[in-house]
C-alpha cells in the first residue's frame, strides 16, 4: 500500500469546509450548493479511503499497462452516490423553486410553529389553568354520569 497523499486530503478537507459553510446559510440555493460540494467531497473521500490510485479496474483485452488496479468496490458505491446526489439535488432545486413561488423568496425562515410556541408561553399557561379536569372538583363530581348516561 502506498502512503496517502496530502493533496487529495486537502481537496477533501477544503470541499467539506466550503460545503459546511454553505450549508449553514439561510438561502436555500446556498444550501443546495453546499449539498453539492458535500456530495463531491464524500465521493472523493470514499475513493481515497480505498487506497492509492491504480489502473482502471477493467481486466482482459481492454486493460492497459500492468499497474495494480484500483479498488472497484468504492467506485461502484461512489457511482451510486453520484446518481443519488443528482436526484436529491434536483429535488432540493424544486424545493427552492417552490419556496420562491409560495413565499416570494428562497430563504429558510424560522419555523413558525416553534416561534409561536416560544412566544405564547403566557397564553398557554393560562389555558392550562383553565383545563376542565382541574375544575372538575373531587369526589362524586367525577363520576357524574354512569355508563347509561343517567345522572346519579
Amino acid at each position, binding site marked *: 500500500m502506498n502512503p496517502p*497523499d496530502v493533496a487529495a486530503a486537502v481537496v477533501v478537507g477544503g470541499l467539506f469546509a466550503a460545503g459546511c*459553510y454553505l450549508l449553514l446559510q439561510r438561502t436555500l440555493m446556498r444550501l443546495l450548493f453546499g449539498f453539492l*460540494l458535500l456530495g463531491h467531497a464524500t465521493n472523493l473521500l470514499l475513493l481515497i479511503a480505498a487506497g492509492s490510485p491504480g489502473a482502471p479496474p477493467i481486466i482482459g483485452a481492454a486493460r492497459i499497462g500492468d499497474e495494480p488496479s484500483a479498488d472497484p468496490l468504492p467506485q461502484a458505491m461512489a457511482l451510486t452516490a453520484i446518481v443519488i446526489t443528482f436526484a436529491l439535488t434536483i429535488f432540493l432545486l424544486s424545493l427552492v423553486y417552490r419556496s420562491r413561488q409560495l413565499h416570494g423568496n428562497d430563504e429558510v425562515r*424560522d419555523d413558525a410553529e416553534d416561534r409561536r410556541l416560544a412566544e405564547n408561553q403566557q397564553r398557554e399557561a393560562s389555558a392550562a389553568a383553565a383545563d376542565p379536569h382541574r375544575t372538575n372538583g373531587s369526589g362524586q363530581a367525577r*363520576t357524574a354520569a354512569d355508563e347509561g348516561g343517567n345522572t346519579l
Partner: protein
Amino acid sequence: MLVLIAAHAVLSAVLPSVGRRYGRAAWWVATCVPLATLVWSLTQIPGVLGGDTPDQHFSWAPVLHLEVRFRLDGLALLMTSIVSLVGTLVLVYSHRYSSGGHGRESALLVAFAGAMIGLVTADNLLLLYVFWELTTIVSFLLIAGVGRTTAHRRAAEQALVTTAAGGLAMLLGFVMLGESAGTYRVSALVADPPRGGEVTAAVVLVLIGAFAKSAQMPLHAWLPAAMVAPTPVSAFLHAAAMVKAGVYLVGRFAPGFAGLPTWQTLVLSVGLLSLVAGAWQALREHDLKRVLAYGTISELGLLIMLFGHGGHTSALAGETMLLAHALFKSGLFLTTGAVDRITGTRDMRKLNGLGKRQPWLMWMAVLAAASMAGAPPLIGFLGHEAAFEAFLHPEPIVGDPDAPAAGYQGWVLAGLFVGAVLTVAYSARYLWGAFADRPGVPPVHIRRREPRLLAPVSVLAVLGVLLGVAYPVIDELAGPYADRLPSGPKPYHVALWHGFTPVLGLSVLALLLGLAFFRANRVIRRQRRRLPLLPGAYEAYWSVLDGLNAFAVQLTRRTQVGSLPVYLTVILSTVLLLPGSALLFGAVSGDVPMRRPALWESPIQATLGVVVLAAAGALVAARHRLTGVLLAGAVGYGVAGLFLLHGAPDLALAQFLVESLTLIIIVLVLRGLPADLGTRHTLPRTRLLRATLALALGTFFGLFALVVSSARTDPTIARAMIERVTETGSYNVVNAILVDYRAMDTFGEIAVLLVAALGSATLLGQHRLADSDQPWRPPIELPEHRKSLLLDAVVRLLFPCVLVLSVYLLFSGHWRPGGGFAGGLVAALAFALRYLTGGWGDPRFSGPLDPRIVAGGGLALAGAAGLGPVVDGSEPLTSTLVQFDVAVLGKVKLATSLFFDIGVYLVVAGVGMLLISAAGPAREPVGVQEPEGASGPTGTGQLVGSEEPHASAEPRESPGPHASAEAYGHEPGRSYGNGSEHRPERGREQAHERGQEPPPAEPGPSTGGADQ
C-alpha cells in the same frame, strides 16, 4: 392452550359482524368459547394435581429469546378456571344487561378472556408481556366504550397510561432479568433465580408493573375512575380477572424472588397500605360501584401480601382468597348492575327498601358480602383464617428457610386485622346501602323486573357457599402451587374448623368489631368530614400529567428554536466533537497508524486540486445564482478529473454527464428565481462562528481522509469480485458490481431516482400537464424567427448520433467504462439538446414517448430481469451467460444482467427527460405581448438565443416576459401586460396552460382546449 387462545381471537374477530346481524344473540355465541375453556380447564385438574404441567411451544424469533411457550401449572390452572368461569357468567349476564353495541362489547370481552388465558399460561417473559399489554388495550377500549363522555375518555386514558407505564417498567425488568439469567423462560427463571444488584432493580421494576396493574396504592387512582365502564366489564376486568394479573405475576415470581429483602418490604408495605387505606376509603363512598372498587383495591392489597410473602400458608391463603374474591366480588358487581337496571340508580343515598321488593337478589348479595367479610362457612372465611394463620405463626419463607424475620410480623398481623375489621364494615355498609330501609328517602321505583340477571349472581354466590363447605377441594386445588414453597413442620391445611385457636378468635373478633364499626360509622363519618381527604391520587395523577406536558413544552421551547442553521450547527458540532475528538485522541495516543504521506500523487492531480478548491472558495463568496451554478459545475468537472486520475473512469464519466445534466436543469429552473443570492444579514459574530466551524470540520475531514487511507492494511474485499468477473460476462469490474454482484443496491437506487424525479417534476409543475385533458403534448412552440437555423440543423444531425452513442455506451459497459448509467445520462443529454433548440414544439422531439412511461418501463424491466431467474428456481438477480449465433453478426455472448442494465438505462434516460420537460415549461412566463405580435410565450428561446442569460434571470429589472413570472409568484390572478387574455381569477392556472395553447390571435379549432 394454543387452540383455545386462537379460538378466542377468531371468535372476537367474528363477533362484531354477528352482533351487527343478530344483535343480542351475539352474546350467546360469545359464551361458547369461555365455556369450552372452563370445561377444558376442569378436565385438566386431575392431571395438574398429579404433578403434570402440560406445555406447548414453538419458536418465534429464537435470536431474541422470543418463543411462544405455554405451560399449565397449578396457579395457571386456578387463574384459567377463574377467568373462564367468571367470563362465561358475565357473558350470560350481559346478554340481558347490555343495551347496545352487542358485537363490539362481546368481541372485546372474549378477546380479553383470550388474552388473560394467554397471560396466565405464558411461559416466556416477552410473551407474557405481549398478553399483559393486550389486556391493557382491551381494558382501555372497554372503559372508553365509544367515548361518549369526557369521563369515559379520561378514565380510559388514565387506566391506559397508568397500567401501560407500569407495563413498560415491567418490560425493562423482564429484559434485565432475562439477560442476567440467560433465559426468558419463566419457569426456568423462577426455579433457578439469578442474584445481584441488577436483579434486585429488575424485580423492583417488575413489581411496579404488577402494582400498577393491580391498582395498588399509590397507583390505584385509575380503578375507581374506571367504574364508568359497564358493570359487567367492571365485574370481569376490574374485579375478577385483569387486576388479578398483577397478583398473578407476584405469585408467579414469589417462589424465586420472595427471599429478597426489597421484595418483602415492597410487597408487604404496599399491600398493607392498599388493604387498610382502600377499605377506609370504601367506607366513604356513596356510589355502590365505587364502594366495591375501593374494596377491590383493598382485597388486592391483601392478595399481593399473601402471594408475595412466599410461605406455604400464605400461598394457600392467597390462592383461596383469589378464588373467593373472584366469586364474591364479581357477584357483588353483578348485583350492583342488577340494582342499577332495576331501579335506575346505584347511589346508596337514593335507594330505599329495595330488599323487601327484591328479596332473592338481596339474599344472594348477603351471601356474597358475607363471604367478603369472612363469615363462616363461606369461602372468604377460609381465606381470612389462612391469612391470619400465615402471619400469626411465623413460617419459613422462600430464601429464608430457618429464621423467619419476626420483626415485622406483628405489624403485618395488626394491619391485617384492621383491614379485616374495615372489610366487614364496608361489606355491611354495601348491603345496608343497597337494600336497607332508609327513613326520609322515597322508596325506590322498580322500573322493571330482571329475573334473568339474577341467575349468574346466584351461581356465583352459591358457589361461594359450596366451595366453603367443600373446603378439601380448595385445599387440593391450591396444593400444587403452595407445596413448592417451604412450610413449617406441620403444613397448614385449609379447613373450616381447626379447633379453638387464636386464629378463630381473631376471625370472630374481626367480624364483631367490623359490625360495631359499621354501627358507629355514621357518628364517625360526621367527625371524619373534618379530616383532610385521603390521598388524592386522582388529582395527583392529573397534576403529574400536567407537569409532564408543561415540561415537554418547556423542553421544546428550549431545544426547538425553529432555526435551520442552529440545528445544523448543533449537528455539525456533534460530528466535530464526538468522532473528531476520537480521531484526535487516537492520533495523540498513537493508536491511529499515521505514515508520512506523499505531498501529491502527480502534478496534474495537485493542479486540478487547486482548481477545485479555488472554484469552491469562489462559490462560497458568490453573490449571483448563475455564478454559483457555473462555479458548482466547475467543482464537479474538477472532481470528475480527480476521479479519472484516481483510476476510476466509470466514475469520471458519470460525474461529467451528471454535472452537465444538473447544470442544464438548474439553469432552466433559475430563470424563475432572482439573480441575486440575497444579502447576508447575519451578524459578523455568527459568520465568524460558522466559518470557524466549517474550517474545523474541513480540517477534521482532511485528517480523517489521511488516517483512513493509511489505516488500510488488508487487501480489498473486492479481490474475489475481480477474479471471478469473467463469470459475469463482463470485464469492467465496476459495471459488474453494479449490475450483478450488488444489483439489488442498484435496483433500489434507480427506484429512489425515479421517485425523487417524480417528486421534483410535480413540484416544478409537471402535474398540471399531466392533469390536463390533453395527452402528453409539447407545451411550447418556439416562434420561427427565434430559432437558430444553424443550431437547429446541427442538433438534428447530432441527435441521432448522440442517441447511438448512448446505446453504444450501454452495451460497451461490459468491457469499457460506460454502462446503463452513462448511457442513460447521454440519452438524457441528447434530449436536453433537442429541447434547448426546439422546445417541445419539435414534433420529433419526444414522439409518442411519455418520459414517465420510459422511466417506469425501465424500472419494470430491471425488476423483471431481476425476478426472471426465479422462474427456473434460481435466486433473484442471478445472471447467466447465454451464447447464440446470429446470422450476420456471428457468435453473440450475452449476460442476462444486460437486461437489468437496459432497465437502468431507460430509468436514467426517462428521468432526465422528465426533469428537463418539467424544468422547461415550469419557468415559462405568462404570455406577453411580444413586439413581434402574435407569437407565443418564449422561454427557452430567450435563454438559448440570449447573449447574456444572466439578464433573463432578473425579472424585476427587465420588463420582458419574466416580469409576469414575478407577478405569478407574488400576486396570483394578476398578470401584467396581458391585454388580450386578462382573466384575473384564473391567472395562476393560465400560467401553464397558456403555454399549451396556440397564440390567442391565431384562431383554430384547438384554441382553448384545456382552458375552457
